[in-house]
């Protein structure tokens, strides 16, 4: 019998850094057939970003030039200050941050509870209910948009940030993700904790969640991205410009007769900074979480 018991492998494997992270042994760039596919794809992904960056420091006239001017005559940083002066941009940023934070926290909390119940409790109709929850993943947002709107209006939340928070506090994706992860944890840990005197909730908060870092991080990042980039729902529930989120606010640079493309792009760049930051910071957890739950993409 080896010293390390089989049972401990999964949890410890999660707690350890991935072996291929950190300091990889430097290897010479080797060309493979995949690069023929990956390089063009990388270009396709990166060109819009670059174009956005370039446009954000051009004049309005330069943005309308054809063929596009790829090297502006001078770099106009004042586009950025103009965005901040011309629109309540900081307010939108704050609104978006508030909504996103609340939704992320709500999802982590409520999806943990539901996911744990589906993973470990035995109750009548559990599998049917879980299947129903999963089925909601297949319902497009446009289908439930109007009923949700009516409910939110009944609650008197229209044109408040709560309209964005309350309907999104938990989601089928998060429940599914966490349930799958919780089921991979050795059940003996939870049994031991229960015999040690922990309640079911105590087991969840003191044993299960501390061991679920990767899954929770994944859920946090995914929820953050969805909420941050959400456009349609804020558009139909928010009317007052100071209540807007970033994505709705950005459209105000886009008029029926004239679009201030340079300002729009400057605002875009600023709205993307938190997302990019988060992605780079959480990338390792993100990829690991997706990998450990056996989900792709």
């Amino acid at each position, binding site marked *: *019998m080896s010293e*390390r018991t089989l*049972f*401990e492998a999964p949890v410890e494997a999660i*707690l350890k850094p991935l072996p291929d992270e950190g300091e990889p042994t430097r290897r010479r760039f080797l060309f493979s057939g995949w690069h023929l596919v990956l390089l063009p794809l990388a270009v396709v992904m990166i060109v819009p970003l670059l174009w956005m960056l370039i446009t954000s420091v051009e004049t309005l006239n330069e943005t309308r030039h054809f063929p596009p001017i790829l090297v502006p005559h001078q770099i106009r940083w004042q586009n950025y200050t103009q965005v901040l002066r011309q629109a309540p941009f900081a307010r939108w940023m704050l609104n978006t941050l508030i909504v996103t934070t609340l939704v992320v926290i709500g999802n982590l909390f409520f999806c943990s509870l539901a996911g744990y119940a589906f993973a470990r409790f035995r109750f009548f109709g559990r599998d049917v209910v879980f299947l129903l929850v999963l089925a909601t993943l297949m319902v497009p947002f446009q289908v439930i948009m109007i009923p949700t709107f009516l409910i939110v209006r009944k609650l008197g939340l229209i044109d408040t940030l709560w309209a964005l928070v309350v309907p999104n506090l938990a989601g089928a994706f998060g429940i599914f993700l966490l349930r799958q992860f919780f089921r991979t944890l050795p059940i003996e840990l939870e*049994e031991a904790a229960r015999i*040690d005197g922990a309640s079911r909730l105590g087991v969840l908060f003191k*044993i299960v969640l501390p061991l679920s870092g990767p899954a929770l991080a994944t859920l946090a990042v995914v929820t953050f991205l969805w909420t941050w980039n959400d456009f349609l729902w804020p558009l139909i529930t928010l009317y007052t410009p100071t209540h807007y989120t970033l994505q709705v606010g950005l459209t105000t640079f886009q008029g029926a007769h004239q679009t201030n493309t340079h300002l729009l792009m400057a605002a875009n760049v600023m709205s993307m900074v938190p997302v990019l930051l988060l992605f780079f910071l959480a990338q390792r957890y993100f990829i690991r979480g997706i990998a450990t739950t056996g989900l792709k993409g």
Partner: protein
Amino acid sequence: MAEVVFDGVTKVFPGETVALDDLTLEIADGEFMILVGPSGCGKTTALRCVAGLERPTRGTIRVGDRVVNDVTPRDRDVAMVFQNYALYPHMSVYRNLAFGLRQRRVPKAEIDRRVREISAMLGLDDLLRRRPAQLSGGQRQRVAMGRALVREPRAFLLDEPLSNLDAKLRVQMRAELKRLHARLGITTIYVTHDQTEAMTLGDRIAVMSNGRLQQLGAPQEVYDHPANLFVAGFIGSPPMNLVRGRAEGGRVVAGDLTFERSRIPDGEVAVGIRPEALSPSADGTPSFEFLVDVVEPLGDEVVVHGTTTGSTVETGAEEEEVPTQVEGARAPITARFDPGVRLAPGERLRLGVRPDRIHVFDLRTGAAIP
């Protein structure tokens, strides 16, 4: 501390698997009770029922003077050591040990005192700040025991706690367990499938098979007087030799072996002889012919495998599907001799056995015939 009583406990799992079938068993206050049996015999289920991790389908379980069927695990005040230890991987050894006390809102100073006391007792002082992943198998095992003992529970449940250790460590821990029990006197239920642990550790052992209690008694008593064929085949290593035979008019014939037994009813029987009851010379005792196949000198004794005329008996206690029938219609026989006995494969001799060391079982019911 408290007694633990199973009263007609039956556990049926979904899919109609009967894990425990009407188990009645009284474990006295402070007793060291061994539940032993092959995998799937229900011993672990019995333990989990006491811990509160399973709820009996029928029957009651009592800890002390309280029926605990509907009591949550946390309120039963029992502690359990899992086969794979189940240490909390994200906590230091100290916090692992303190977890149960913290859950019970024991004052901090008291927690610290008890953790230090138990870690001194188990030699864990220098490891308190480590994580389970940084411990060796033996250290983890001791932490798991410490975590259970630190709470000073009313009953101490162990589920094959030594099976993940290497052989040497197991011998050490076995002695340590016995010492701990003598010192603390906590009612202990110990589940194992290991012969040696069963024989050496317990005050009494309960042999189980298919969810039923087969025999209950002191280890030596169970070894000397197995109540039925299953126990005969399960307890003892190497196992008891069993040969099919027939009783008629007070005389039993099994293969080549013939002996007298008064007041035995006529019918099909199984004749059982422990390997150490055989001697390589007949000396006027009942005897049978034996063909040596394999000789295993172990230093302090020599184990000889071979065959005799006749056919063997299945007891249901066989570990795996090892073909027991060798060379057509011959029954396998294992004998243990003094190391001085020299035998070679292919040799033929007569093995003798004293009649009072021969066990006879009714082949239909499996029960021992006295």
